[in-house]
C-alpha cells in the first residue's frame, strides 16, 4: 500500500478514536423527529405510543403543573401587548397552570387509543393501525409493513375504508379535505396521488422522474394549498404539482431543501438558520404563482408551526416548551399561558380549539387539554390513568 494511503488510514482512525463523542439523547431526537415529521406535513398529526411520550415527559424533568404563585387562579388571558414584537418568539415563559383548577369539557374529537381500543368521541373500536394521521376532522390510517407495502385507510365514523397502497406517509390538508401520498414506482419513477377525503376518491395521479437519490429521503408530498396544489420534496428538489392542469414544476425562488410544507396561500419554506443552536428557526410563507415562483408574504418564528384548518393562525412551540399562536391577519404572536415543558404535543381540533396532550410528572396521568383560542381558556377533555396504554396524536 502507498505510504500516504497507509498514513491516511491511520490518521482517520486516530481522529475518529480521539474525538469526544457527545452524549446521545435518543428521546430528544425522537421528539424532534416527530416535530419535523409534523412540520413537513403541516397539520397532519402522527400518532405515537404513550410509553415513549411518557418517557419524554419524564425526561422533561417531571414538570409540575402548578402556577408559580400556586394561588389556584384560573388561566390567564394570553398576552396581547401591542408592544410585543409581532413576529418574534416570546422571550419569557408563561405563567403556569394548575390542572385541578380546570373545568371538564367534551371528549376530544380527535381519535385516540386506550389499550388498543380506538375512541372517537365516546365510542370505541378495537383497532390498532401502524400509524394514523389526522387533520381537519379526518383521520387516515397506515397499515401494512415495509416488506409487504402499506395501505392507506380513511376512518369514517368508526369504519376504516381502504383507499389504496402507499410507499410513504400521507399529508392531509389542514382543513381535512384532501390528502396526498407517494405510491412508489420503479427505478427513478415516483408517483404522487391526490385524494378527496370527502368523497373518498382519487382526484389525480402524477408519475414523474424522481431526483431522489437512493439514500436521500424519498419523494415526499409536504403539503397541499387551497388550490389543491401539492408541494413535494423530491430529494431536496422543491416541486409543485397542479393536478387540475397536471403541471408539475419546480418551485423557484427558494433554496434546495428549504420547502417544509404548505399553507392555504401557497408554500412554507424554512428560513436559513443563521443563529446559534438554541435559535428556534423561522419559516417564511408565501404565494406560488403559475410559473412556480415563490413570493414571500411574511415569517413566523418556528420551523415547526401547525396551521389551523382555515389557515388563519399557526401554533408553535416556543424555546421554553410552551405554546404560542401566530395570527396571519394581524401578524402578531399570542402566548398560550401553559406551563412550559408540560405538553408532549398538540393538534388543532377545530378552527377555534387547540388540543394539547401531555403526561404529568408526579402521577403519570395522561391529559388531553382543550384550549379555546377565542376565549383563551383551558378545559380538560380527557384524563387517563397511568396503567393504561394510550396512543394519542403526536406532533410536537
Amino acid at each position, binding site marked *: 500500500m502507498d505510504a500516504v494511503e497507509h498514513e*491516511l488510514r*491511520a490518521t482517520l482512525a486516530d481522529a475518529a478514536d480521539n474525538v*469526544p463523542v457527545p452524549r446521545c439523547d435518543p428521546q430528544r431526537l425522537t421528539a*424532534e423527529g416527530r416535530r419535523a415529521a409534523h412540520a*413537513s406535513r403541516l397539520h397532519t398529526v402522527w400518532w405515537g405510543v404513550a410509553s*415513549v411520550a411518557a418517557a419524554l415527559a419524564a425526561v422533561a424533568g417531571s414538570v409540575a403543573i402548578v402556577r408559580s404563585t400556586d394561588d389556584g387562579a384560573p388561566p390567564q388571558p394570553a398576552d396581547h401587548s401591542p408592544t410585543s414584537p409581532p413576529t418574534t418568539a416570546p422571550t419569557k415563559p408563561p405563567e403556569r397552570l394548575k390542572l385541578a383548577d380546570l373545568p371538564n369539557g367534551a371528549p376530544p374529537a380527535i381519535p385516540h387509543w386506550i389499550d388498543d381500543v380506538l375512541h372517537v368521541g365516546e365510542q370505541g373500536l378495537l383497532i390498532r393501525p401502524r400509524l394514523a394521521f389526522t387533520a381537519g376532522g379526518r383521520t387516515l390510517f397506515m397499515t401494512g409493513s415495509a416488506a409487504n407495502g402499506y395501505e392507506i385507510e380513511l376512518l369514517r365514523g368508526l369504519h376504516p375504508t381502504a383507499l389504496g397502497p402507499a410507499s410513504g406517509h400521507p399529508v392531509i390538508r389542514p382543513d381535512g379535505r384532501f390528502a396526498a401520498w407517494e405510491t412508489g414506482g420503479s427505478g427513478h419513477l415516483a408517483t404522487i396521488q391526490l385524494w378527496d377525503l370527502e368523497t373518498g376518491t382519487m382526484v389525480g395521479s402524477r408519475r414523474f422522474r424522481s431526483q431522489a437519490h*437512493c439514500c436521500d429521503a424519498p419523494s415526499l408530498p409536504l403539503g397541499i394549498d387551497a388550490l389543491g396544489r401539492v408541494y413535494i420534496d423530491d430529494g431536496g428538489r422543491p416541486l409543485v404539482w397542479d393536478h387540475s392542469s397536471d403541471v408539475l414544476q419546480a418551485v423557484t425562488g427558494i433554496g434546495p431543501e428549504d420547502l417544509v410544507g404548505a399553507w392555504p396561500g401557497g408554500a412554507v419554506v424554512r428560513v436559513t438558520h443563521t443563529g446559534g443552536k438554541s435559535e428556534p428557526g423561522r419559516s417564511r410563507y408565501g404565494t406560488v404563482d403559475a410559473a412556480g415562483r415563490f413570493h414571500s408574504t411574511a415569517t413566523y418564528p418556528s420551523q415547526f408551526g401547525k396551521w389551523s384548518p382555515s389557515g388563519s393562525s399557526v401554533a408553535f412551540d416556543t424555546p421554553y416548551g410552551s405554546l404560542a399562536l401566530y395570527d396571519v391577519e394581524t401578524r402578531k404572536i399570542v402566548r398560550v399561558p401553559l406551563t412550559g415543558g408540560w405538553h408532549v404535543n398538540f393538534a388543532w381540533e377545530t378552527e377555534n380549539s387547540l388540543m394539547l396532550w401531555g403526561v404529568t410528572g408526579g402521577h403519570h396521568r395522561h391529559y388531553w387539554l382543550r384550549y379555546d383560542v377565542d376565549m383563551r381558556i383551558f378545559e380538560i377533555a380527557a384524563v387517563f390513568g397511568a396503567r393504561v396504554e394510550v396512543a394519542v396524536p403526536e406532533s410536537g
Partner: protein
Amino acid sequence: MTDDESYVAFVTARWAALFRTSYLLSGSTGAAEDLLQTTLLKAYAAWARIEGMAAPEAYVRAMLVNTFLSGRRRKSATRELSAADVPERSVASHEDRVVERSSLWDRVKLLPPRQRAVVVLRYYEDLPERQIAELLGCSAGTVKSQASDALRTLKRALEAAEPSPNAGPSAGGES
C-alpha cells in the same frame, strides 16, 4: 417493538460510530453533531421503511454522507459561511499525538467535500469503490479519480510541509 422503540434502540447503539463518521466528514465536533442530528431526523421520518431493510445502518450511513454533501451544496449555493466551514486547527486532545497525523488530518479537512467523502468512505469505512459509487450516485471511475486527486493533494501537502533534505539557500546564494 414499536417504530419508536426500534428507532431509539438503533440510535442508542449506533450513535458513537455514526458520530465518528460524521466528525470525519464535517471536520469539527459542532458541525458533526448538527450533521448527525439532521441525518437521524431524516431517518426518523422514514424509519418505518428503513427498519425493514436488510442493513439499516448502512442506509443511515449513506444518508449521512448525502446529507453532508447536500448541505455543502446548499451552503455553496447561498454563499453562506459558518464557523464549521473554517478549517479547524488540531483540537487540544490531539495536539500531543503524532504531529504528522495531526497535520495530515488538517489537510484532509481542506479537501473538497466530495473528495473528503470518498476518502472517509474508502479509508475509514473500508468500503469498496463500487459501493462508494452506488452511495454517491456516480461511477466507480469517478470514485477512483476523486480518491486519486485527494491522495495527490495530500501527498503534495505533506511533501511541502516536510523540510526537504536538499533545502537550503538558492543556487545564487551558494558560496
